[in-house]
């Protein structure tokens, strides 16, 4: 089979002659133009804040390893939940309760690891964080399943069920410890929130980066073999190499960035003392590397992408979103699917609560307050259609990055006041949806 075969193309057929260089590039690499647009917008935002800082504040600080590292950590909590919100919105539902589930599960986990488990296991026992995380995730799943069951079997609109849930679980979060803040959390648990110790360092990051590159190359090879087997059209070799180079390049660049952000001097001193390192602390360069919450987000993102694109479950999610009646007539148990989707959303909210409370090293009943709005906004900015049937996991994560970049950037250029940030995020949300509408009209 040659690369320019006469058999029906795998990609939609367009005549080559009328296409410009960019259109041909997109067709041959089969890159998603929507994703290119989002990444372009994100880079524009980053460069914009950097330049604004350079020209008006005497130095841009946006594109520094320190800021980018912090940005990655700040993206984790919302990003984890945004991936689940994609499934909820694709199936034409909404979940307004996720922020409150974070608050409630966070409080339960706080009380569990601070007040209950140490009594039986002893303070700092390595099983504490594991039990806590499992309980938090299961509790989230249970709450989500309850919301899903009320939506699916009693036909109460998801908007109402989860609006009620938002109030109920926020109230319950207060009652868990009568409004008291639970601190400090277990020291192993705290690593899940990031910080100098909650990152995997230079060597670890290189290992992650190289495994990632190997996985990318392996998957591309598999996909090419598969197409050959069924005699579908292949991507031209130059396109394969370009895509592989871009994907691996981005990953390696990320490793270089997180490795060039050193531990702060105070932490280095403490570490040097504790480990009897003779080198003077100001000459030690200890990299942060990838933060653990970022790795959690990456794992969630990969897992959810596989779930959505490679499994029956994901296929049914899209089918229900596209035509619920057709899905039911095809033998899909749409009600049970709804329960599972909300349970998954709850699980991810529990996981987000782990990261959020670990990051604060405390649990408060206000944890995750109004987070649901940012989660929904992230999914929608990332291209998830409220009409249902359309959405991607990577889009939701990029959407979270866009929102978080805007928030961080506003702080860095001196508009850190919450009111300005809210205005900018609000404008970005409306603008993103408008651009999406234009894009869909044009590509139809």
């Amino acid at each position: 089979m040659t690369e320019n075969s006469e058999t029906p193309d795998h990609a939609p057929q367009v005549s080559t002659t009328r296409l410009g260089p960019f259109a041909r590039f997109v067709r041959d690499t089969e890159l998603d133009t929507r994703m290119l647009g989002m990444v372009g917008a994100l880079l524009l935002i980053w460069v914009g804040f950097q330049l604004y800082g350079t020209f008006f504040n005497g130095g841009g600080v946006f594109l520094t390893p320190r800021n980018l590292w912090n940005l990655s950590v700040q993206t984790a909590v919302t990003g984890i939940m945004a991936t689940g919100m994609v499934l909820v919105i694709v199936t034409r539902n909404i979940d307004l309760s996720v922020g409150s589930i974070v608050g409630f599960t966070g409080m339960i986990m706080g009380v569990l690891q601070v007040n209950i488990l140490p009594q039986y296991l002893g303070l700092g026992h390595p099983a504490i964080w594991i039990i806590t995380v499992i309980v938090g995730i299961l509790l989230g799943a249970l709450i989500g399943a309850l919301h899903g069951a009320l939506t699916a079997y009693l036909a109460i609109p998801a908007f109402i069920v989860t609006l009620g849930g938002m109030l109920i679980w926020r109230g319950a979060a207060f009652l868990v410890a009568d409004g008291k803040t639970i601190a400090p959390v277990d020291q192993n648990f705290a690593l899940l929130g990031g910080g100098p110790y909650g990152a995997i360092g230079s060597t670890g990051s290189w290992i992650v980066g190289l495994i990632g590159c190997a996985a990318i190359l392996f998957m591309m090879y598999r996909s090419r073999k598969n197409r050959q087997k069924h005699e579908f059209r292949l991507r031209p070799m130059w396109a394969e190499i370009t895509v592989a180079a871009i994907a691996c390049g981005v990953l390696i660049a990320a490793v270089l960035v997180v490795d060039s952000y050193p531990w702060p001097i105070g932490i280095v001193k403490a570490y040097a003392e504790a480990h009897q390192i003779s080198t003077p602390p100001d000459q030690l360069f200890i990299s942060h590397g990838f933060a653990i919450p970022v790795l959690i987000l990456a794992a969630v993102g990969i897992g959810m992408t596989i779930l959505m694109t490679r499994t029956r479950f994901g296929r049914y999610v899209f089918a229900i979103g596209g035509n619920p009646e057709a899905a039911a007539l095809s033998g899909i148990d749409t009600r049970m699917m709804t329960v599972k989707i909300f349970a998954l959303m709850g699980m991810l909210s529990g996981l987000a609560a782990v990261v959020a409370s670990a990051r604060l090293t405390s649990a408060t009943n206000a944890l995750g307050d109004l987070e649901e709005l940012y989660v929904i906004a992230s999914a929608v900015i990332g291209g998830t259609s409220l009409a249902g049937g359309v959405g991607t996991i990577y889009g939701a994560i990029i959407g979270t990055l866009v929102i978080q970049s805007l928030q961080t950037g506003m702080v860095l250029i001196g508009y850190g006041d919450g009111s300005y940030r809210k205005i900018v995020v609000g404008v970005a949300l409306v603008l993103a949806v408008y651009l999406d509408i234009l894009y869909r009209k044009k590509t139809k």
Partner: protein
Amino acid sequence: MTNRGTPLVELRDISIAFGGIKAVDHVSIDLYPGEVVGLLGHNGAGKSTLIKCLSGAYQADSGKIFINGEQAEITNPRDARHYNIETIYQTLALADNLDAASNLFLGREIVGAGGFLDDSAMEAETRKIMARLNPNFRKFNVPVSALSGGQRQSVAIARAVYFNAKILIMDEPTAALGPHETQMVAELIAELKKQGIGIFLIEHDIHAVMDLCDRAVVMKNGQRVGTVNVNEVTDEDILGMIIMGKKPAQAV
């Protein structure tokens, strides 16, 4: 046509009501292998509702379903598929955001190692069956919302035919089609008949019924007016049954 032996399908004394309105009122029909039975009647006569009891979309309030002489419990579309009953719905029942292969295999996906979807295999199978049903079909990698009415119809037909149906239900299969495609559907029905598949055909066009069907069942206001062998009656007889509920002498 002489119908001997065990019917492929027998719907016996089916009733179903929605909020006090009897959509289907004690109706019995049957279908033999290699036979096409037309279902006629006004909009709202209860044809689609009756047939949805067989396809699993609805459950009858009373009455029994027999498949090959044995009583069958069909409580959802999965059960119907288990009995090799396939349905082409009037609405086509396609998920518009998915491509042809995903729709064809919806609910019965091909999975490879580890339970992951084998999209390439599904696409390859889809290409094979579409080459037979609609050789001009090329749009395999776009959502079916981007297809024409005829192309969408051929996806729905492919889905019903692909899985070795023994009993096929077609709810106005040619309503959205042009003359050429309608002819293709007629040829397909003839071919499926030869393979011994039994077909229920819900149809408004009396000429199509006269051409394609062996028997015709006419319904009115949820009740069965009568069943006729189409070669024993005229168009007018059937029209009379549909419009006035008048049962001709040949009808049973």
